[in-house]
């Protein structure tokens, strides 16, 4: 009497199940309390009662050792990933079709696409970035070192993960730079800014040691919204 494995590598007790319960959709829990069941899983050759007693922590397990010291790995807070009240499914990346719906910009919602409305051109800074242009889209564009940034500046450690954003307002055809709540200042034409500030063509934005010149595409001469209306 003992466990067996099915062709898919699942362990089960053939005396409890005529066929592998896990191959039937995994909806069954093997009943380890069934009659005639030996103590413990039957190991190859030596499973059973000869194994040593399970280890017991002194005084049982308090919260201290487990919470503060013993949980290693990437959890900054051991309980950060644990919330029984949350829907805890593994979630696919958000660009999966059919995946979780994501917030989209108003322009995209109305017109079905997110166009370029301007650019930032790097005129000073890390040699890999100097000379490059970054598209600004018809939404709030995050600027920083984070991978998720819309305008990602690498090689300048004086820039925060999320240092600032530039928002485009289609109705007013205006661009606003919004500094984030970070220790690193943002300067427009050499002057530090701490509140949302309107920017105009050829304003120089400085983040860390990186200089970016703002060049708008949408202006009095061109508007995506007007373009879309023409087609209606």
């Amino acid at each position, binding site marked *: 009497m*003992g*466990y067996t*494995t099915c062709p*898919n*590598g*699942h*362990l089960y007790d053939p005396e409890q199940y005529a066929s592998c319960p*896990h191959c039937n*959709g*995994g*909806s069954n*829990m*093997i009943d*380890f309390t069934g009659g005639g069941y030996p103590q*413990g*899983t039957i*190991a*190859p*050759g*030596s*499973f059973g009662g*000869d*194994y*040593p007693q*399970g*280890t*017991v*922590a*002194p005084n049982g*397990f308090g919260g201290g050792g*487990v*919470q503060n010291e013993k*949980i*290693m*790995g*990437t*959890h900054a*807070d*051991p*309980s*950060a*990933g*644990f919330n*029984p009240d949350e*829907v*805890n*499914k*593994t*979630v*696919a*990346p958000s660009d*999966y*079709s*059919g*995946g*979780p719906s994501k917030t989209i910009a108003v322009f995209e919602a109305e017109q079905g696409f997110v166009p370029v409305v301007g650019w930032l051109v790097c005129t000073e800074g890390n040699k890999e970035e100097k000379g490059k242009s970054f598209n600004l889209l018809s939404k709030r564009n995050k600027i920083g*070192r*984070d*991978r998720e940034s819309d305008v990602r500046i690498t090689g300048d450690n004086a820039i925060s*993960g999320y240092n600032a954003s530039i928002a485009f307002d289609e109705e007013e055809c205006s661009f606003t730079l919004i500094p984030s709540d970070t220790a690193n200042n943002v300067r427009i034409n050499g002057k530090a800014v701490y509140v949302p500030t309107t920017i105009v063509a050829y304003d120089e934005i400085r983040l860390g040691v990186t200089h970016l010149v703002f060049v708008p595409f949408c202006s009095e001469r061109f508007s995506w919204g007007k373009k879309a209306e023409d087609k209606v």
Partner: protein
Amino acid sequence: MNPYPNSGTYPVPGEQDMMPTVEIRPFTYQISNLQGIGTCERQEDSFGFVNALDDEKISRRGLLAVLADGMGGMSGGKLASETTVATMRGDFEEFDMSGDIPRQLCSAAAKADDIVFGQLAGKGGSTLIACLFYREKLYFVSAGDSFLYLMRNGSLYRINAEHNVLHRKFEDRIADKDISLRSITNERENRAVTRYIGCGKLRDPDRFVRPLPLYVGDIVMLCSDGVANVLPPERIVEALESPSVDEMCRMMNAEISDNPTGQYRDNYTALLIRCAY
């Protein structure tokens, strides 16, 4: 000559006419598995062992345990996880055990990634944890947000990295010397996995470059987030202190299944391997 025979007797330095011998007892592995569907419509977790019940094969080629959690909400989640497990198990049979085992595990994971991507064109995927117990050492490869735990001397250790947006943000913020973690812990996007089987570009799964030596009494648990995100670490430790691996599974299943009516519970799977003589 086998430099690491798994059994036998060896002469111990001593009087020539009195040669005491020491019998070296090889490890055995006490194994159990637990799986449940929760409140989901279908089971999208998959798992499998290789050589679980073959003492001779375990000593010669090791014991492989594989767990995969198909992407919830995606079409093909079950296909992705089954393919992942089948590929790892199949490739393991061809491993050169005298060669670079971590590299072979990573290659198998990359192959599974290519196959699943080819099947589902990026519209499905799976996490992966694969553990190889060979010559009393632990090798592993992982991608995604499933969990690999080691319980040793009464303490629980999470071994593998968690590949999701939340932990990527942790890394970016730490590099930025910004440790205001609370501002990023409650966003919906945080649970999205960043490395997984089926992305088509899996290049850097988590793994041991050098294997971890195992000791008698060590318990290794592979589990999906349906276990680890429901049972807090203290409850897992309590379950793993049970006298048998079957009792450990029974305790965990009872806790996970203790589900208030209507509350969502994900698929859950756990593989338990305890080192013993």
